[in-house]
């Protein structure tokens, strides 16, 4: 007998019975409870998170306005410039809802490859890998450092329908500028506040992959991480 001898149906039926029995057992465990004063200390991060969330929403609105202006400018430029239109239209596509969204659904044929790993050959001192995974064309790695304001997050999205990047930014006063990583076009979102996340995003049309690096870092550091990234495909 092997593990695969259990069919999904058998497992589902058994799990249903176990869930019902578990609930019954838990309901016999009831102990009246009111959170203690010490619990208020635990809630401080939640207060902070709620405040940050509100700030984030405000920032998104500001950023969207700024990006909208950028897109409108780009549209006007592209309307009069065939060369520019051919090189840019593959990746700069839309803003969606309250999120900043880029898509790589260009006219030119692109090879879709799934990223299996993105290894930063350089990171600011002290950062080590905290977590990482790949799943269905999505790669994520998070690097942390004791005492750092935030993690450094590296994401790559490839595969059909997955080639988009959304941001959660916390500062309305971003500097936004076009950048190039290798042969790929991208944009840099740079905060003036060292404790606020900055981001860099770029698109590799040849593989249909979008990349992003986010962290409380300066322009030089973000660009160096992005440029010194060893990208492995499945």
């Amino acid at each position, binding site marked *: 007998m092997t593990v695969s001898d259990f069919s999904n149906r058998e497992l589902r039926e058994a799990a249903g019975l176990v*869930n019902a029995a578990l609930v019954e057992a*838990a309901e016999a465990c009831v102990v009246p*409870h009111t959170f203690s004063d010490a619990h208020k200390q635990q809630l401080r991060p939640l207060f902070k998170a709620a405040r940050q969330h509100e700030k984030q929403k405000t920032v998104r609105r500001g950023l969207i306005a700024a990006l909208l202006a950028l897109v409108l400018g780009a549209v006007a430029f592209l309307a009069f410039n065939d060369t520019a239109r051919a090189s840019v239209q593959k990746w700069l596509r839309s803003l969606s809802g309250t999120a900043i969204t880029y898509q790589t659904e260009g006219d030119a044929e692109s090879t879709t490859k799934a990223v299996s790993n993105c290894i930063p050959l350089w990171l600011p001192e002290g950062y080590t890998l905290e977590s990482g995974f790949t799943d*269905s064309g999505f790669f994520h790695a998070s690097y942390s450092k004791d005492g750092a304001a935030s993690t450094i997050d590296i994401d790559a999205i490839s595969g059909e329908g997955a080639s988009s990047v959304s941001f959660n930014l916390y500062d309305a006063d971003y500097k936004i500028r076009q950048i190039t990583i290798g042969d790929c076009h991208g944009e840099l979102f740079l905060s003036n506040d060292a404790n606020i996340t900055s981001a860099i995003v770029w698109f590799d049309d040849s593989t249909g992959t979008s990349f992003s690096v986010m962290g409380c870092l300066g322009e030089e550091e973000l660009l160096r991480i992005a440029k010194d990234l060893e990208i492995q495909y499945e």
Partner: protein
Amino acid sequence: MIIYLQALESEEDRSRFETLYRLYRDMMFGVAFRLTENREDAEDALHEAFLSVLDNMDKLSDPSSVATRGFLVVITEHKALDLLRKRERSLPLEDPDQLPGVPVAIQEDVPLASAMARLPAQYRALLLLRYYHGFSVREIAKTLDRTPGAVQKQLTRAKQALREAMEKEGCTL
């Protein structure tokens, strides 16, 4: 509870969370207390469980359903046992991965369900999330703060443990 509600955007989610909080807080605390045998640890586990609930409001559409209650129990067990595992660093436990959850008795004569009910809490939680709640590996990973790779590996081990438990009882499929 007001603080938890601040973390939710929609009025509907807030209302649903409030219902969950009022209906199941004592049950969840009881589960955590049973596993940690310590009020402070149980409170910590309960707090962590509610934070997890905030992240999973989309999966808790019906507060009174047995699925919702089961999910809350699984999450609370997981958070309580996580605390015990962390404590293991200073006070070695026998085998943190083999920690039992709330004892469960299956009334029906279904050997597979009985074997699943007796599995260590970690394995039982994975199987319930996967096969009863229908979570993907990625969703389980997010819910339990694990990587998808680790979840996939543990699911395989859980099924292996289930097979061994069945064999021990002299059952065949």
